[in-house]
């Protein structure tokens, strides 16, 4: 209206309305096609118009009682904020940064916790081994029947040997799939997740897993199949058991944040330590995935004991060198 009464806040609004309309147009384009696809002019204007709009909002809150204006500016600023501060990540950059930098760095930062994870597994294995040698009936206590698959103190040596060097009827994809949802993956998930309850469940579960492992090995060593079982286990076990220990390290890291937050709040500590712990969990998941491939395909294809040992420990050495050497920054 031409002969309208123009009060101060209306003048304020009139002067800036065009800029806001332009900002809204850019923001709509950014929401639809992403900030990457904006033209040079639009991208440049987005940042400055966003700051102007935020400024206008702050002024309008002080001088204007125009509800229409306040609501519009609030929504517009919020939308522009979301467009300006959208994560600017590329998938390739993200993946390569994880593998080349952040994962090995997180591993080195949490080396102590990971070593504690390995320690838990090792102590469990030694205990399981010794207990079995003392009294074989411990075996049934440790191993759930479905996991043992008929391989117990009652089984004949011939049967044990045949399991180690058999051509399994179902192999490949099916075995691979069934493995992933098997015992050890579940253990790894629990070991990580339960670590948050003050470390103890993670440590105990890993220890228990070690017990199973120790008893299982002891059974075969007693029958003179020590090297054969070492080969059978090594090909995927080096990777798989390490994954469990690393998941345990992540769990212990979470638990230690809850137990010893230091000067921080517990939630704060959990959030900070969680950054590394999550990376450990992802590393463990990748290793379990690799172990599944090895178990699903490698174990059937490679029947020779020495080759099995070499492959298993060679891959273990590769993991170790990834953790130790990759992503070091020169200072």
């Amino acid at each position, binding site marked *: 209206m031409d*002969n*309208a009464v123009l009060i101060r806040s209306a003048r304020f609004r009139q002067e800036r309305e065009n800029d806001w309309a332009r900002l809204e147009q850019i923001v709509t384009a950014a929401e639809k096609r992403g900030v990457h696809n904006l033209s040079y002019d639009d991208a440049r204007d987005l940042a400055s118009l966003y700051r102007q709009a935020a400024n206008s909002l702050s002024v309008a809150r002080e001088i204007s009682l125009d509800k229409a204006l306040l609501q519009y500016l*609030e929504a517009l600023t919020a939308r522009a*904020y979301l467009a300006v501060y959208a994560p600017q990540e590329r998938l390739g950059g993200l993946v390569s940064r994880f593998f080349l930098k952040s994962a090995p760095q997180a591993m080195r930062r949490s080396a102590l916790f990971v070593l504690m994870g390995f320690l838990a597994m090792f102590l469990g294995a030694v205990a399981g081994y010794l207990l079995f040698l003392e009294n074989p009936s411990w075996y049934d206590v440790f191993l759930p029947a479905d996991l043992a698959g008929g391989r117990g103190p009652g089984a004949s040596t011939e049967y044990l040997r045949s399991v180690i060097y058999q051509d399994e009827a179902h192999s490949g994809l099916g075995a691979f799939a069934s493995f992933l*949802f098997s015992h050890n993956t579940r253990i790894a998930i629990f070991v990580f997740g339960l670590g948050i309850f003050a470390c103890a469940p993670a440590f105990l579960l890993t220890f228990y897993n070690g017990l199973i492992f120790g008893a299982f090995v002891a059974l075969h060593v007693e029958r003179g199949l020590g090297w054969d079982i070492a080969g059978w286990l090594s090909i995927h076990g080096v990777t798989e058991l390490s994954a469990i220990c690393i998941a345990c390290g992540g769990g212990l890291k979470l638990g230690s944040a809850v137990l010893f937050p230091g000067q921080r709040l517990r939630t704060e500590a959990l959030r900070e330590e969680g950054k590394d712990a999550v990376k450990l969990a992802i590393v463990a998941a990748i290793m379990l995935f690799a172990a599944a491939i090895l178990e699903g395909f490698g174990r059937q294809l490679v029947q020779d004991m020495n080759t099995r040992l070499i492959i298993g420990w060679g891959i273990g050495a590769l993991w170790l060198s990834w953790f130790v050497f990759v992503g070091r920054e020169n200072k």
Partner: protein
Amino acid sequence: MTQKARTKRVVRKSNLRLIEDFMPPEGVPITFETAGLGVRLGAQILDILITFLFVIAIVIMLAIVDLSRGETVMAVGSLLFFFIRIPYYILTELFWNGETLGKRMLKIKVVSADGRSLTPHAVVVRNLTKEAEVFLPIALMFTMPGMDGWGVLASLAWIGACLIGPFFSKKRQRLGDFIAGTYVIHKPVARLLPDLSRATTVQHAERFAFMPHQMDHYGAYELQTLETLLQRDTSKTVTYETRRRNEETMDAIVTRIRRKIDYSDPIEKKDHRDFLKAFYAAQRAHLEQRQLFGDKRDDKYQLAERNKNNGA
């Protein structure tokens, strides 16, 4: 009495919508409306359907190509579901700025609670914990019938623990949101309504002239309520019924205002709208000017209280 009426209003306002102040790096607080659990559940269901359809398509393809054994297909299917959904949530939320397809359809969005942009870490964490918080309870519900007493008890405890978080946190955060430092909002809709202070002409402003003391009865809340009412007429979809009801409300309001501010000149019924518009413009100019001088008036109770204290 006044105190009671005031608290009542505050409660009513906060119950309606979950509003959160949010501080971006520019230092101007923005308000976001937190997404409720219903809409989030809806988005989650949509996402599950989308990923599930995707998996079914792949499984059918596999079944046609080679693997005829049902058992294997099932195993591969459940495995695929696992391997498709984790990247699906992480990648969509990362590249579409906190929106999965389901969230996009329902117009909600994940934001970082600290006012910075969403980090890959936050997105990964909130979606990995989703496995334990959303998918594990669903799986437990399916497997529960086959469990023993303790198993059922433990599952129920876990499901309960997962549900408690969002219900009791102010920003409707689940556990993963807490750890990642994120929460979910409604995407704001920006629509600029006309400036009502300019809807009145000079002639009207002269015809309905107000004295300064007549402007000292109402505060910002009443002014904006009046604005909402007058803006209703400007929207395009006004039915005859709502228009009639608006007229009635307006008549009642004019009577109230006239009594309150002692406006003695008679106003014809057809001029009611122009009167209200003129009153709105005059009242807003007055209140804004007072506010510039540091005299902020939130509502009429504040004014009444102040007058009472000054009188005593």
